C-alpha cells in the first residue's frame, strides 16, 4: 500500500536490496540491507532511521518488537550528499514469521525519512524468519 502524503508533495521511493534475494532468513542469521532513496525532488531531510522489527497483524490488538534501530543525522550520510545506505544486524532466535488466520507475525525492515518540513515517510519491506508453513483453513461452508 502506498499512501500519498497529505501535504500533497510527491512521495519518495525507497528501493531495498536484501543480502538474501529470496528474503528468507533463519533464526540467528546475519542480515544486511542496502537501500536507495529516489524522488525527493530536492526536499531537505533531517534524519533517516533504519529499523528491523516484527509486528503482529490480525483482528485484535497489535504487537510490535524492534530488534534493531539506528538514526542517521550526519549530513554526509543523508540526501542529497548520500542517496542510500546500508545496515546490518544478527537476527534473534525468535519470534518466527507466521501466517496464521487470526494473527500473523511479520518481520520487516523500515527506512524512515524525516523531512525538514515536519513530515516523514516510512518505507516498509517484509522478509521471513524461519520456515513455518502457512496455516490452512478447512473448506468454507459459508459465505
Amino acid at each position, binding site marked *: *500500500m502506498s499512501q500519498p502524503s497529505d501535504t500533497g508533495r510527491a512521495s519518495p521511493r525507497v528501493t531495498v536490496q536484501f543480502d538474501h534475494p529470496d528474503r528468507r532468513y533463519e533464526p540467528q542469521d546475519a542480515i544486511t540491507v542496502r537501500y536507495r532513496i529516489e524522488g525527493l525532488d530536492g526536499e531537505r531531510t533531517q534524519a533517516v532511521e533504519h529499523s528491523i522489527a516484527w509486528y503482529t*497483524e490480525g483482528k485484535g490488538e*497489535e504487537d510490535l518488537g524492534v530488534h534493531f534501530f539506528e538514526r542517521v543525522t550526519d549530513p554526509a550520510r543523508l540526501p542529497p550528499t548520500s542517496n542510500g545506505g546500508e545496515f546490518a544486524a544478527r537476527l534473534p532466535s525468535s519470534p518466527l*514469521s507466521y*501466517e496464521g*488466520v487470526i494473527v*500473523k507475525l511479520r518481520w520487516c525492515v523500515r527506512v524512515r525519512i524525516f523531512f525538514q518540513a515536519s*513530515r516523514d515517510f516510512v518505507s516498509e519491506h517484509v522478509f521471513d524468519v524461519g520456515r513455518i508453513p502457512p496455516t490452512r*483453513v478447512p473448506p468454507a461452508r459459508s*459465505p
Partner: protein
Amino acid sequence: MSTAIDRGDATRPSRIPANPFATRHTKPGAVAPLDHGGTPLDLPRLVRRLRGLRAAAIEGPHGRGKTTLLTALADAAGSAGTPVAVVRLRSRRDAWAALTAIVRAPAGSLVCIDSWERLGPGLAAVARAAARIRACLLLVTSHRATGMPALWRCETTPGLLAAIVARLPDHGGRVSRGDVVEAFARHDGNLRESLYDLYDRFERRVREPTAG
C-alpha cells in the same frame, strides 16, 4: 508531523497476501472518518463547532466509528496547536485517569474521553464541573445521551462500509460488493464486526482459492 507509509511490497515474500481488513488498516487513526454516505467529514468545521459548545459528545451504538472520529478530531485540534489529552475508559477503574487529565488540562486545551458512560452519572458530573473550572474543551464518546450537546451522531449504511473498504489496501477482488452488504446486514450496521467478517472472508478465500 504527518507520516506517509509505503508498504508496496508488504506481501513479498510472504506466501499469504496481507489482509486489508486487519486491525492495522482499520483501527482509529488509520481510517478517515466518513459520514453515513461515505463522504469525509469536515474536521476543522467540527473542531470550530466544539470550540463554540465547550463540551460535546459523539454518540452512537457500538462499532459505528465514534472512536475513529474522536481520534481524528483530537489529531485535527492538535495539528492546529491545541494541547490535547485522550483518555480511553476501559472500565470504571480508569475514571481516575480521566479526572486527572481534566484537572491537569491547561485552559483552552482539549480533553477527549472515550466511553464516557463508563464514568457513571456521579463521576461524569464531577468531570464536567472540573472541565468548566479548568476552562478546557471536553469531547466524549458515548453510546447514549450524555446531557451534553451531540457534536456528531454516528450512523452507518452499507454505502459507508463500502466507502471504507474502498479506502483500504487492495483486496485483489477477493471481496465483492455483495460481501460488504451481507456483512453489514449480518452485524446490524456494526462496522467493526462487519470488517472482522470481511477479514475472515478474505482469509478463507486467499487460502482456499476455490472456496467462496
